[in-house]
């Protein structure tokens, strides 16, 4: 089946920053992204879990964004401005997509 090269960007960031990152991505002209819930995690600032939490403070969300290679840099710049002083984890991997026209 006919596929096209693309990039898969995954950004794990504090839940309270979700709204800001969304706006930054939209301003950077990102055509689409998906936000996945996160259950728990561990890092230099210790381990945490969402279980029983009322405040969003202790928690992260994961952004997944499939994007054309040429659009990657504006996305990363936008994401970086938000993530910079925060604890977001940004990873980029190569992927192939069906229906390139939608990206």
């Amino acid at each position, binding site marked *: 089946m006919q596929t096209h090269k693309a990039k898969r960007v995954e950004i794990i960031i504090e839940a309270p920053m979700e709204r800001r990152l969304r706006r930054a991505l939209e301003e950077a002209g990102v055509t689409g992204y998906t936000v996945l819930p996160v259950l728990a995690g561990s890092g230099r600032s*210790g381990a945490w879990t969402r*279980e029983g939490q009322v405040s*969003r403070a*202790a928690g992260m969300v994961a952004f997944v964004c499939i994007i054309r290679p040429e659009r990657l840099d504006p996305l990363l710049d936008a994401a970086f401005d938000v993530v910079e002083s925060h604890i977001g984890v940004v990873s980029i991997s190569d992927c192939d997509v069906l229906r390139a026209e939608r990206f």
Partner: protein
Amino acid sequence: MDGILALAATNLTSPIILSFALGVAAALARSDLSVPEAAAKALSIYLLFAIGFKGGAAVSASGIDAQLVATLFAGLVLSFLIPFVAFTLLRILTRLSAVDAAAVAGHYGSISIVTFVAASSVLASRGIGSEGYMVAVAAVMEAPAILSALFLVARSGSAEKMDAEMWREILLNGSIVLLIGAFAIGWITGAEGLEKISSFIVAPFDGVLCLFLLDMGLVAGRGLRDVRGVLGGGAIVFGVLMPPIGASFGLAAGLLLGLSAGGVALLMVLSASASYIAVPAAMRVALPQANPSIYLTLSLGVTFPFNLTIGIPVYIAVALALTGG
């Protein structure tokens, strides 16, 4: 004195406190007992809605007066000032960075609504009345302390830019909006509205509170499990020293305002308690350099249990004594 002790004893053996203790014990024993996040949030929505509504309904009966306005203003001031006291105390007792200290200080200026709710239910169970608008005071006290915290940080150099977005997030925080909104609904619909839904927001209230405190205990206990790694002795001392200090400010204000015994007690509770919803989320955004585990553990793991078990009965006893109520 032994009045207070007896009081503390009965307080400690109430289902509410014991549910909290169960949660803490389960978490410390690393049991896998846990309340789903969605259920915990639903419980807190119920509590905020119910407490807000009841407060509003009470005000619709009593009506507004100068005292109400004055008390709201007092709450505003307390929320602004207490962080400066907390900050100074932290600098003396701990080696926390200015940013961490400011973030913690912000939590103590703000309030813990569940502590307020627990205190209200103790007052109710002992037949001590209080001003219905204390709920509105609670709402008013949530946010100002955040600004004090940011000011403290700015003063100590590492400034943060506050954009309009952040202002809205702080002032329109979900728990503030729900509390004030429910208060308004209760006010508008009054006794009639309350009667309509009282078998939902009044009758089962204490039972729901038990489950919520079970969850709070689980979360607090999880935090306590690695408290040693996170908090030094000084910080822990702060966590139990700050509440009575805050309470004394609330006491002074309450007496000046001439509130009822219950009202004074609640104002003490609000001043003594530390936020665990609104402020942590705001700090995550506004002060990312601050370490979340420090302020979360202090607020939820140290100060909340202290107020719930020892604080509340003491504050009530003191309020009763000094108001001659």
